């Protein structure tokens, strides 16, 4: 997934977004999608909806390939991906 994103240093980068931007926008701004991003953490915590981001928030994004610890995968499952699956 790191290969798909420009401008990062060993997987870390800063993103400038407008006021009131949500998690989904951050993902799309990086050129990723909700299927690729399987595990999401905001400030190290799980999110249950497309939350609004505050300045200084830390987002951790991980692809499907890496989500092999079951407790982690269940706890931090990308709710946006799940919504897509439910709708299909």
């Amino acid at each position: 997934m790191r290969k798909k994103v420009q401008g990062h240093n060993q997987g870390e980068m800063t993103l400038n977004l407008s006021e009131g931007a949500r998690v989904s926008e951050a993902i799309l701004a990086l050129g990723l999608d909700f299927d690729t991003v399987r595990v999401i953490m905001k400030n190290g915590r799980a999110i249950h909806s497309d939350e609004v981001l505050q300045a200084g928030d830390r987002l951790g994004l991980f692809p499907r390939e890496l989500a092999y610890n079951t407790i982690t995968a269940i706890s931090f499952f990308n709710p946006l991906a799940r919504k897509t699956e439910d709708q299909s």
Partner: protein
Amino acid sequence: MFKILRVDMTSQKAVFEDIPEKYQGLGGRGLTSAIVAAEVDPTCNALGPLNKLVLSPGLLAATNCANSGRISVGGKSPLTGTIKEANSGGQAGQYLGRLGIQAIVVEGQPAAGKLFKLVIGKDKAELLPADELKGLGNYDTVAKLREAYGDKPGYCSIGQAGEWKLAAASVAFTDKELRPTRHAGRGGLGALMGSKGLKAIIIDPTGGELAPLKDPEAFKAAAKRFAKALTDHPVTSGGLPTYGTDVLINIINEAGALPTRNFSAGRFEGAEKVSGETLNEITVKRGGNPTHGCMAGCIIRCSGIYLGPDKAYVSKWPEYETVWAWGPNCGIDDLDAIARIDRMCDDFGLDTIETGAAMAVAMEGGLLAFGDARGAEKVLREVGAGTPLGRVLGSGTAVVGKVFGVKRVPVVKNQALPAYDPRSVKGMGVTYATSTMGADHTAGYATGTNIMKVGGYVDPLKTDGQVELSRNLQVATAAVDTAGLCLFVAFPVLDIPDALVAIVDMLNAKYGLSLTTDDVSALGQKVLNIERDFNIRAGFNPGDDRLPDFFRREPLPPHNTVFDLSDGELDQTLLF
């Protein structure tokens, strides 16, 4: 016809016998636990003549089912005093399956100082003296045995740690390259093997064959569907083969659950340097192999080959738990040092989790500074040399805690906690506290078909749903361990419901049964009930199903949470 091989170390006789009715339908962990629970006095001294060492391949061993070659090793644990099953990859599972051996039961005890090797082939088994192997590490042991027995057999052995009956001693198994790099690590079963005077088991599959199948066509079709699930799933076909289990370092660190410097923080500043991404990068740069299967028939291939800066072989890829225990938990960020440590643990025959956690406790006790990689290597070398300090480290985390007067000792039932802090992944905390095995992460690792029905989302920082999650995972894992499957098939099983159906179909096709997926759950529960009953008879009670109190009192940065599930909630976990 599958048989049990009974090995009496007192009389040095090895005899094949039919499988009694009460043990039929079981394999792997299900069988080792059933035998230990039925035949071992739960109050016996674990290093004495009444304990038994049991090895068993799983129910799907010696078939073309992918990833079915795991082997279970069981007994009363010299470390925890509970029943114990430790699981390993390598060649032994498949080879025993091909020889039609469903279990090896090692009982009795030889005279003090006597050391033996067990040589097994098609319809034959004998115990021979092994004085030439005394005091050797696993690497030299296997090298010597290969001179005598060649490259056809798989080798099982103990290093110095097992010979000296240290409680963190492991049982080693050779991989496809005949290196002793796969271990039944947890719970000191290497010490049990040492107490039986058994240095090595040589398993020659020549003349053996694939297990007979009641319905070969149905089996083949189900095996194909199962393999497809593994190759379709991005975890088993992408993440694990590329980055190994160490891929978890960055994720768990981000979640604030990576125990750092003896469980004093949940994030480590050097995490990236020891991550799976870095492991892959170094390996590719040095010409090592990032995609390596530990056993024949594995199509995931999560292991790898680690080369040093001089491009010489150091060890197989250290696993996530090994990297964590000797890395972040010790404040160490040097992957080369960790790889050398991994090799020493493989050689002396030690549980890397137990010894790494022990080293961190020793650091907190002032033996070394956190982060002192060279110092850690030096102390570990002492285990192989048998010095008093080495024996202390090799006896595990709780003993080290006592010797150094440390108050923060992360163990449950005397076994060290693994690489997920229970204050930020509370479901793991429930598993650590309640598992029949002591603090164990693999006990509650896999999944069953009903896992996604667990109340929707389970927030790892909240208490809701954690007990149910842990219960379901522990049940499912017991079933996977009994089938002899690699635990990592669990993730495709979570996502692709047909994968679990395929497993059930294979069991039915092999044994002529009519199981359903509900039976998988029932099997898991049965195994856990057998184990719980043994522990109760051994003197354990609900008061032992608890985490050390500092997890309840000390908030863990960055989330600053504590473990706050009540004792009453914990006691609900293994009630079915």
